[in-house]
């Protein structure tokens, strides 16, 4: 009986941890595979896995609305666009060509140096007395109201103007894409 009464917050935090490591591992592994695959279609598939794993991270962070938006918009919309363009553009000869640019070792070195710098920054900020990065508590999660409602309220009250600007941006992008992809008459 005593075993069944382990406190609920502890069990929730255990579950959070398991889900986080699962989704984070999936995202990082499929990101690496996406960058290293020779075939572009395989890269696209692995990008889809990485985006789905990110959606899982959003859900684990209690951002349900973004979880749905991520799946419908990214995985359903943008990735279909990518796969269409790959089908339109992909040449069979492209598979035989060298897939990495000449400056690949310099680029890799610069990226790893950047990673080392930022990790060092996180590490030192965690070591400083009283300056450590704060901890995600379970209380912060219960403070959030129902997610979609809260997002809508914030979006249409505090951020109405940016929302309108984003819609204009999407209109411009749509016209731009049509003009770009149109056949020259």
């Amino acid at each position: 009986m005593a075993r069944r009464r382990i406190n609920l917050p502890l069990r929730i935090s255990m579950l959070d941890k398991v889900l986080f490591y699962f989704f984070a591992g999936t995202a990082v592994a499929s990101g690496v595979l996406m960058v290293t695959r020779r075939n572009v279609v395989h890269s696209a598939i692995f990008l889809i896995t990485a985006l789905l794993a990110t959606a899982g991270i959003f859900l684990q962070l209690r951002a349900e609305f973004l979880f749905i938006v991520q799946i419908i918009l990214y995985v359903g919309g943008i990735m279909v666009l990518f796969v269409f363009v790959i089908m339109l553009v992909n040449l069979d000869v492209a598979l035989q060509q060298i897939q990495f640019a000449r400056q690949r070792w310099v680029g890799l070195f610069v990226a790893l140096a950047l990673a080392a710098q930022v990790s060092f920054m996180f590490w030192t900020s965690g070591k400083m007395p009283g300056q450590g990065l704060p901890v995600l508590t379970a209380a912060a999660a219960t403070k959030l109201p129902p997610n979609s409602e809260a997002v809508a309220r914030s979006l249409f009250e505090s951020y109405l103007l940016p929302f309108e600007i984003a819609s204009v941006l999407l209109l411009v992008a749509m016209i731009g894409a049509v003009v770009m992809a149109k056949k020259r008459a």
Partner: protein
Amino acid sequence: MLSIEHYLFLSLALFIIGVVGVVTRRNVIVVLMSIELILNAVNINLVAFSRLYGDVAGQVFALFIIADAAAEAAVGLGIIIAFFRNRETVLADEMDLLKW
């Protein structure tokens, strides 16, 4: 207990993978996909801090970034199609019309 550092390091890892993809790949489509991965890494940070402070504004900004990524993908892929029609290539280092 998961701290914000877990999310920061996950986001950093995805960001760096995206940067490596952008600087090392020749295929422009893979470069565009790596940019999508970078934008996703930023979204993870925004949502993690939104959870940390119990403020939903971070999620709203993540929404804006997703809209931005959609616009960028549409225009970028349009440019790739237009370029492919003219030069029959999608490799970044063969796009050298402006190179002297």
